[in-house]
């Protein structure tokens, strides 16, 4: 018997080896895609912090997306039950750390509603200026980070260049650059500063001597005058960019019904075409600050949107944010005009250990990312029985599971980024 088997004979007698002998062209057509679990995050640049998405993928298609949160849980509510409301304000800074001023504002207003405090005009005007400036800074980060998510680096640099000036102005106001604790129960901790040295960023952009001293209000006006025409440039750079439109238009489409049912608020809700902004439709304790100001509430659909865009997609949500920046500039300008003649002090005195009445109240305010709610239950002690912070991003994030079903993997960062979530606020 011939000991040298031909290759075919060998294959027949040894079935285990047959794999190696298959025609490579056949194998090529036999590529199967198995379902695979992919862990995106908690350390992933596109998840905006410590969000973990568990993706069940089949090739490039995501069949199921399960968000896992809680990596930044710092027991803020439990801490709040052991502190007086004023002591809790620094903890509210750490919730949405990109818009800490707006968090302070919501927290303070809830406490004022509970205590039945009346504020002087000046305190309200300062709050409007600071709150809207916080919104501008926050949306700038939102824009820059969204560009990064989609692979465009330069808008991020421009956004942070502008935000730096806002942070410098905030630093002059309260001494801090990120966690301000500036707006407090009864008003604000300080009045606006009178004269400051021009922020270095603003000096170099407007080609002024960095040692120039000028009133804080004028520095802010100078910044707004400089920022406003730049927004058109960002639109050319990002919003109307063909690649950007391809990555955002008609992706992550959310109907108005779904947005309402999922408790979405802020730009996410307005991006789906629901005209609802607490600055106009909220409770009087909050809306009275904005009553005399003229501003529009940008709501999708937009007449000047590219033809590919569908109501409620990523592009709409992003564009609502960009348009809000323009409106905020309007409000700040208006408020700056009113500030010098506003009556009263920047603050009414409030003791640290003021006892809360035996009552409870819930108040929501319009933060950059949506409606942030605070719920306080007083029992006659300085410490509330329950200090609840309802997060807007928490609700906005809950739609990812539905929006990411059946989309290509590359669209997941695009969808999550368009919701513009901050994990500090979700996990509290």
């Amino acid at each position, binding site marked *: 018997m011939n000991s040298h088997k031909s290759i075919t004979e060998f294959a027949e007698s040894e079935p285990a080896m047959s794999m190696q002998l298959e025609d490579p062209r056949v194998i090529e057509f036999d590529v199967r895609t198995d379902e695979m679990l992919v862990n995106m995050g908690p350390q992933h640049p596109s998840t905006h912090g410590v969000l973990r998405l568990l993706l069940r993928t089949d090739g490039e298609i995501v069949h199921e997306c399960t968000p896992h*949160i*809680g990596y930044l*849980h710092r*027991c803020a*509510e*439990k801490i709040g*039950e052991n502190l007086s409301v004023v002591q809790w304000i620094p903890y509210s800074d750490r919730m949405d750390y990109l818009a800490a001023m707006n968090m302070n504002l919501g927290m303070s207003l809830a406490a004022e*509603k*509970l205590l039945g405090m009346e504020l002087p005009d000046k305190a309200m005007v300062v709050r409007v200026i600071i709150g809207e400036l916080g919104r501008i800074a926050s949306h700038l980060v939102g824009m820059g980070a969204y560009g990064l998510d989609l692979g465009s680096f330069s808008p991020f640099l421009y956004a942070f260049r502008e935000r730096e000036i806002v942070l410098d102005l905030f630093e002059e106001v309260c001494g801090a650059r990120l966690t301000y604790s500036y707006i407090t129960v009864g008003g604000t901790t300080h009045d606006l500063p009178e004269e400051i040295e021009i922020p270095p960023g603003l000096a170099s952009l407007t080609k002024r001597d960095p040692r120039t001293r000028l009133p804080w209000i004028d520095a802010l006006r100078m910044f707004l005058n400089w920022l406003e025409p730049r927004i058109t440039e960002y639109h050319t750079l990002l919003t109307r960019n063909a690649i950007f439109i391809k990555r955002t238009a008609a992706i992550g489409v959310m109907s108005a019904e*779904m947005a*309402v*049912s*999922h*408790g979405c608020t802020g730009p996410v809700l307005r991006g789906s075409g*629901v005209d*609802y902004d607490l600055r106009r*439709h909220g409770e009087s304790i909050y809306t009275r600050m904005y009553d005399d100001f003229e501003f529009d509430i940008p709501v999708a659909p937009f007449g000047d949107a590219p033809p590919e865009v569908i109501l409620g997609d990523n592009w709409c949500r992003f564009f609502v944010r960009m348009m809000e920046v323009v409106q905020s500039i309007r409000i700040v300008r208006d408020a700056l005009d009113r500030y010098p003649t506003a009556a009263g002090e920047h603050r009414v005195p409030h003791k640290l250990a003021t006892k809360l009445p*035996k*009552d*409870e*109240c*819930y108040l*929501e305010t319009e933060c950059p990312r949506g*409606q942030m*709610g605070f*719920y306080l*239950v007083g*029992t*006659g002690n300085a410490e509330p*029985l*329950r200090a*609840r912070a*309802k997060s807007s991003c*928490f*609700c906005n994030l*809950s739609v990812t599971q539905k929006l990411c079903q059946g989309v290509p993997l590359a669209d997941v960062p695009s969808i999550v980024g368009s919701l513009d979530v901050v994990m500090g606020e979700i*996990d*509290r």
Partner: protein
Amino acid sequence: MNIEDIHEILLEKFGSDVVVGLTTEAIDPWIEVAGDSVAEVGVFLRDDERLQLKHLNDLCGVDYLEPDPKKSKRFEHEPHIEVVYQLSSLTLKHRMTLKVKLPRWKNETEGDLPEVPSVSGVWSIADWHEREAYDLLGIRFLNHPNARRILCPEDWVGHALRKDYEFPQEYHGIRGK
């Protein structure tokens, strides 16, 4: 529409067995309903043409208990747990607070979590809010599609926002105290 009108509509529809109470003297007045029927009340509040409360702003639990015996004399509430629903209508621009009162423990047996029907079928966001209330306050929501912890790890023991919660001595070798 104010809270008295909503109360009247609810009372007419469900009767006083379900709509247990109305408190108007509070800053945010609230309506209290019986725990067992909160899901049916929720469907009605959401779908009724006059109310249209389609937006659930917040759902949270509150633990009424003063664990310190010195302070408990001045504490006016009986020990109980409340589930608070904040609702609003984006079209009609009104809002309301709905409450459900529960015992701290089911059948007075410590460790047996109180139960209330889930409203996640009424408002989708309740899914996550209820998971958080279960995680932090130990309220069991019946018929919840995914009744797991959301903020704490799944093997965490206890519910942190309970007033008598004791911080664990150690967790996976990490010293707690």
